[in-house]
């Protein structure tokens, strides 16, 4: 293998004068050397603005011996730097959740052709909702065609004015007996869907599916028709302008996931060019929401399947009153003390769906540490205390425990937020123990609780399974939450040191020499980390320091 250092050597030599016959290689072929001011300007511009300097900018260096400080400060205030920092942070926050399936067929209207030659009509693809409305999951009659039938419905139940509620026994609903079963076909009506900015755009929606009932009763509780527990209610449809339902993916889910990514980027903007301390990235309780995020959270996120992501709004979660089409309007909200910067934003919680993966990514991204399995397997019963061969307590399992003793408490810090979801597990809605779930087969219990009676702590809310007296570190971590964990990292200096190492690697294009025999830059790390902390964790300050280092201004 040719070492990486050979690349610039080779490059330099290709463009150097022919070396045949010379005794000594040119200086730049042999030793690290300072780059000239033109190359330094190119390096600064590429690193800080993401583009090469213009010819005029190069020319401005003629007659000078070095690059004025104002050039660097100008770059740090530029739009280019904002974009560079966005990309830099995406490289370890991975905020793309476009592959996450939000839309469930019980809460999505999709176009379907109801009759040969007829135009598409939107309706629920979910068989259970069709069955609830029409008496059969798949209606097909000779007179009206498929499902709701291809005719316009204009008569609605007068007992519920303004709700466009369909009376299945009313005269305008067509009833047919198919194989001994009475099926109902209610036709369609025109609706302006919430995802279209142009108010003149209307689509045909089956009339049951388009009902605008806002609330219904489930058990003794009054719930929104947009809540997943209301799915079996015949009087519930998609609500006004279909607001309780997902629409076509490119129009709704893709717009929401793009907004989630942008939400993280806007948090990065605040610490890169917005003057906020870098610690805000993991400690701020604030977040910005735009129209798609607000409308999704307010109207759509509650309508879900327990087999998919759990994104029910938190109790009292602030949601701006923006319309879905307000894509470019962003409003800042305070999410409350349980939140921790980008670590509890949907993009992070849904990109890293388990507490362990969240903890691991936090550790990699902000503490610059990664788990490595031991090279040798541990023999059952060996060690002090003796390790166990089986069981779900990974802090005691042979071999596993090397990493999981540290990982489990760190993962527990993320426990208060639903795995494969974004919801804060409020104790009133999610009691820490539910004896009713022991041995239960309900989807809710199996999703959130330890249902196996033989397991450790049966009935415990899953993240709390090992939050007991024999696991004090887990107990403390889950009680404190992710913000306290991030705060501890800031207080210990680990956060600052990691930020310095990452930024050094990004700009100087190699790791800092801070380990083992190659540790001549340890003092520099300590100096920069201390300076970063004492300068209010200012990211631009740190970047300016790194690009001023001799290391940055020399190449080999």
């Amino acid at each position: 293998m040719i070492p990486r250092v050979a690349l610039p050597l080779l490059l330099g030599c290709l463009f150097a004068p022919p070396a045949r016959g010379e005794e000594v290689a040119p200086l730049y072929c042999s030793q690290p050397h300072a780059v000239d001011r033109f190359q330094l300007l190119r390096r600064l511009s590429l690193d800080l603005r993401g583009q090469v300097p213009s010819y005029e900018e190069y020319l401005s260096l003629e007659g000078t011996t070095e690059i004025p400080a104002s050039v660097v400060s100008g770059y740090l205030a530029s739009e280019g730097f904002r974009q560079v920092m966005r990309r830099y942070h995406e490289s370890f926050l991975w905020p793309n959740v476009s592959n996450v399936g939000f839309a469930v067929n019980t809460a999505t209207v999709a176009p379907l052709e109801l009759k040969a030659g007829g135009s598409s009509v939107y309706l629920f693809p979910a068989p259970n909702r069709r069955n609830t409305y029409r008496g059969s999951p798949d209606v097909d009659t000779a007179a009206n065609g498929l499902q709701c039938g291809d005719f316009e419905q204009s008569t609605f139940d007068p007992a519920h004015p303004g709700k466009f509620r369909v009376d299945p026994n009313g005269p305008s609903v067509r009833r047919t007996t198919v194989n001994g079963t009475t099926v109902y076909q209610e036709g369609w009506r025109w609706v302006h869907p919430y995802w279209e900015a142009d108010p003149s755009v209307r689509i045909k929606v089956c009339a049951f599916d388009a009902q605008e009932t806002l609330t219904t009763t489930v058990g003794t509780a009054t719930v929104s028709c947009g809540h997943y527990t209301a799915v079996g209610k015949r009087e519930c449809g998609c609500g006004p302008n279909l607001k309780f339902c997902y629409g076509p993916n490119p129009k709704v889910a893709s717009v929401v996931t793009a907004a989630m990514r942008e939400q993280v980027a806007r948090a990065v903007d605040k610490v890169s060019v917005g003057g906020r301390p870098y610690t805000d990235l993991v400690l701020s309780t604030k977040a910005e929401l735009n129209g798609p995020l607000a409308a999704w959270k307010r109207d759509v996120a509650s309508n879900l399947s327990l087999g998919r992501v759990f994104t029910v709004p938190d109790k009292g979660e602030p949601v701006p009153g923006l319309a879905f089409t307000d894509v470019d309007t962003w409003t800042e909200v305070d999410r409350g003390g349980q939140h921790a910067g980008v670590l509890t934003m949907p993009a992070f919680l849904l990109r890293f769906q388990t507490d362990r993966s969240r903890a691991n990514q936090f550790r990699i991204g902000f503490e610059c540490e990664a788990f490595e399995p031991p090279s040798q397997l541990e023999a059952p019963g060996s060690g002090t205390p003796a390790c166990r061969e089986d069981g779900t307590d990974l802090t005691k399992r042979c071999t596993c425990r090397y990493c999981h003793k540290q990982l489990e408490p760190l993962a527990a810090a993320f426990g208060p937020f639903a795995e494969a979801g974004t919801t804060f597990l409020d104790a009133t809605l999610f009691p820490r123990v539910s004896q009713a779930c022991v041995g239960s087969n309900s989807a809710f219990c199996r999703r959130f609780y330890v249902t196996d009676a033989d397991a450790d702590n049966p009935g415990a809310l899953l993240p709390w399974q090992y939050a007991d007296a024999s696991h004090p570190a887990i107990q403390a971590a889950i009680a404190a939450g992710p913000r306290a964990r991030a705060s501890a990292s800031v207080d210990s200096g680990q956060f600052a040191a990691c930020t310095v190492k990452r930024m050094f690697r990004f700009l100087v294009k190699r790791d800092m020499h801070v380990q083992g025999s190659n540790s001549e830059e340890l003092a520099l790390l300590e100096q920069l980390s201390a300076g970063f902390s004492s300068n209010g964790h200012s990211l631009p300050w740190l970047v300016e320091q790194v690009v001023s280092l001799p290391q940055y201004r020399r190449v080999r």
Partner: protein
Amino acid sequence: MDARRWGVWGLALALAGCVLQGPATPAVDAGSGAPGPSLEVGAPQPVLPLDHPPVVDPNAGVPSSGARRLSLAQLKGSLPVVLRGHTWKIGTANGFDSRAATLGVPDYVGSVEENLEPTPLYAKFMADMARDACSRALTADAAEADPSKRAVMRFVEPTDTVAGRPEKVDANLRYLRLAFLGAYTPAGNPPELARLRNLFDRAVGAASGGTVPSKAHLAEGWRTVCVGLLTSPEFHLY
């Protein structure tokens, strides 16, 4: 990166170098004077170019930064700066966007790290990029009467040749080296300038077939220089 990839990149570098340096002298056996083998085959190991003098261990001495290939985002941001608004297009789309996934830009779902290795695929698409973007810039230059608004022919007129206006050709080459590579060319006739001038002159000669070069032939010469610079390692590394 494995040795094979570095080998390919080395080949790409060598090809780019050939564009600017001309044909290499074949190795000669010292004993017989007959042409000797041009390549030694053996276990992969660090190898310097033929006849290169020994170098000092670059890991020793003063710490310095490493070198890195430009990312796709940096290329996308830089091309309009270098070519005064022109960029690589595939159909009506920006080529850097169209080929982002192919060229290793991570989507943070299936891939999470940008591939900055100089793969053969990268070399191929960068050659496409250079030919397309330079053609666009030269077409626009030909229609632009004000030299200060031109991207490539900034200090020459479309009829200027090496023989007729050498000082203007050199001024333009100096401009191109600085604008494209950030390489300042000192006064006089340094070898890097001579090589580019030679490239321009030979490309014009090849295009004109020995006749008096027309504007189109001269534009082809500048297009060749533009492509050579945009495919040179000096453009892609920093």
